[in-house]
């Protein structure tokens, strides 16, 4: 690492070439989570390059298993802020670089032609001032859309504290906008990002929300009115840098969905890049990936499965179970309503069965109108039977004779091999010994 940095510094004395620059500004952008290209459908008008598909398209997967869909780069990694968790904080001795709008455009266009990417994800450190940075971003997007006639996907970060008029203008060029919440609570933000305030983050978020609402009405009147952030806005927060519980985080996420109408909330497991007294002590465990995974699972339950945050967690039980996903965990605590009959249960009940996803639930509801369903049909429909079988009946019969008991189901689900890191499964279940104390 040291030698690599040294080499870079030496070469940056002379003119920094494109390869190095891209390397630095990719490296600085990689901690941003969102890389989705979904949420909007746009055809090419026949004169430019690019289109958008509703589902989004993944173009590659990096070694960490995350999807590469957009060219995710920072405009610059120079920054006047001193956020303690960030590699690009002003105190850090890292090689700094900046793109020019032209360079970003050329890279995007050439990558896009070769089908490497679905579009551009442009974020930035704060160069000089939030307004100055936002103007540079605007200039880049304007050029990309107008001069290069790029009609693919653009995800852009709104810089907190930038003039709202600039944010509004950028919104007409981008497909998705996001303002990072950074940390789940205002106290956390104060401790770790002294130059950012909750107000400065929520203000552009509210602006985008209101402007989107107005835009919806404009579009009803004039079909060809310019579209403002058609793929909606998202945000992300860092998990594990501050002591919030999962319950608090889920409540924040829920209120963001309800009050700010966000499309997505992303969770980013805290990765130790800086040594700072304000950050949690470094342990050998690495980032809290399982916790992040559970939060995402719960997030899906909020958005697609009609769950509420307080159903999943409570004040007394504020963190997710490491052994089971939130839905399984919920089902195990509500065994009184199971098993449910597949051929009769209503859609919302089906959604709550572990092993049945929203797509299979829709298919079940449609298919059972035309004939009764059996376990073999369910398997083909896409239900994960090894998880669902404890909670469902088909025509009044269970798949195997099973007991509706928490212990029994827990043991069987665990041995069916929930996907867990080995250190967690190790303690999951073991041979019962005579000397074990019996606890419920």
């Amino acid at each position: 690492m040291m030698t690599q940095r040294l080499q870079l510094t030496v070469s940056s004395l002379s003119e920094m070439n494109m390869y190095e620059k891209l390397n630095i500004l990719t490296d600085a952008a990689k901690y941003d989570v969102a890389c989705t290209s979904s949420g909007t459908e746009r055809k090419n008008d026949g004169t430019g390059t690019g289109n958008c598909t509703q589902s989004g398209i993944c173009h590659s997967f990096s070694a960490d298993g995350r999807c590469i869909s957009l060219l995710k780069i920072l405009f610059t990694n120079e920054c006047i802020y001193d956020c303690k968790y960030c590699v690009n904080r002003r105190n850090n001795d890292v090689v700094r670089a900046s793109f020019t709008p032209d360079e970003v455009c050329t890279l995007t266009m050439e990558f896009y032609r070769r089908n490497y990417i679905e579009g551009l994800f442009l974020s930035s450190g704060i160069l000089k001032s939030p307004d100055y940075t936002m103007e540079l971003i605007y200039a880049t997007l304007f050029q990309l859309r107008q001069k290069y006639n790029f009609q693919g996907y653009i995800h852009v970060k709104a810089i907190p504290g930038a003039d709202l008029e600039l944010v509004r203008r950028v919104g007409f060029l981008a497909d998705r906008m996001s303002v990072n919440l950074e940390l789940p609570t205002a106290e956390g933000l104060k401790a770790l990002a002294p130059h950012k305030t909750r107000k400065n983050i929520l203000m552009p978020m509210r602006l985008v929300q209101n402007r989107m609402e107005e835009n919806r009405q404009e579009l009803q009147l004039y079909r060809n009115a310019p579209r403002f952030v058609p793929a909606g806005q998202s945000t992300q927060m860092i998990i594990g840098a501050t002591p919030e519980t999962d319950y608090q985080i889920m409540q924040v996420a829920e209120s963001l969905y309800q009050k700010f109408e966000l499309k997505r909330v992303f969770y980013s497991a805290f990765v130790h890049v800086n040594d700072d007294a304000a950050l949690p002590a470094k342990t050998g465990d690495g980032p809290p990936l399982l916790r992040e995974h559970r939060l995402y699972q719960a997030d899906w339950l909020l958005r697609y499965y009609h769950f509420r945050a307080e159903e999943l967690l409570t004040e007394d039980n504020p963190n997710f179970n490491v052994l089971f996903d939130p839905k399984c965990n919920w089902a195990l605590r509500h065994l009184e309503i199971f098993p449910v009959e597949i051929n009769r249960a209503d859609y919302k009940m089906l959604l709550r069965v572990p092993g049945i996803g929203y797509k299979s639930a829709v298919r079940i509801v449609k298919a059972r109108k035309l004939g009764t369903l059996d376990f073999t049909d369910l398997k083909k429909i896409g239900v994960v039977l090894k998880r669902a079988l404890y909670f469902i009946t088909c025509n009044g019969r269970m798949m195997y004779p099973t007991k509706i008991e928490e212990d029994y189901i827990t043991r069987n689900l665990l041995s069916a091999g929930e996907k867990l890191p080995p250190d967690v499964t190790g303690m999951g279940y073991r041979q019962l010994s005579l000397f074990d104390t019996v606890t419920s």
Partner: protein
Amino acid sequence: MKTVYVCNDTVTGIFSGIYDAWKAKKDEEDCKIALRGMLEQELFCDYVEVEETEHKAAAVEALIKRHLGQLAYWDIYHAILSADCQKGDAVLGAMLAAKKIPDSTKIMEHLSHPKVEKVFELSRNVGGEAHNYKGFLRFRELENGVLYAEIEPKNQILTCLAPHFADRLPMENWMIHDRTHKMFAVHEGGKRWVIVWGEQFDETVFEKVSDREKEYARLWKGFCRTIAIKERENPRCQLQHLPLRYRTDMVEFF
């Protein structure tokens, strides 16, 4: 006695077979569509060679669209592109089953019917592969400026990919080479795409790339390497999303 209609493994061929079977007004048990070259001989059957015509195919397409709806046609069309040899039979079975339910347009929801389920499964498989290739396909710029991509799909997905790229890159000259089925999708800037097969190309042209090409490939490789977070490395997760068979033609894995 059962009649087996033997047809070519193309959309036109299979639709022609369905046309003949449909005309004969047979029950589901009394007829079968088989593909030439993938035939399993059975006892006590009549084998009928299907004459392949555009007219028959168009008639079947119109029949499906009118009575089963556009969405069902989408599923059936994708099922027919599959590499499975029972696809024709499954489609015919689903069409016959549609006659027996009150609302034929709901046929693809009738998943407890084995033939409908088969069509659904095939369509999902083909659609999935086509969607994957929309992302995983890589163009390289040849010396003459043409964007050229090679793929090796299991199913015949060129007709799913071509409209997508024609909309996306309308001004470019590009071609996609399907090595499995020895077919090409060719698009000339500003014009409509065409499917070409049975023609010999000078393969050496495909090896000569433009000067800029190597530089952009290098930038892309660097990008893919840098974007990964070391602390989160997870090759199994990567493998699950991006199986090895796609990687042979992806420049970042060279």
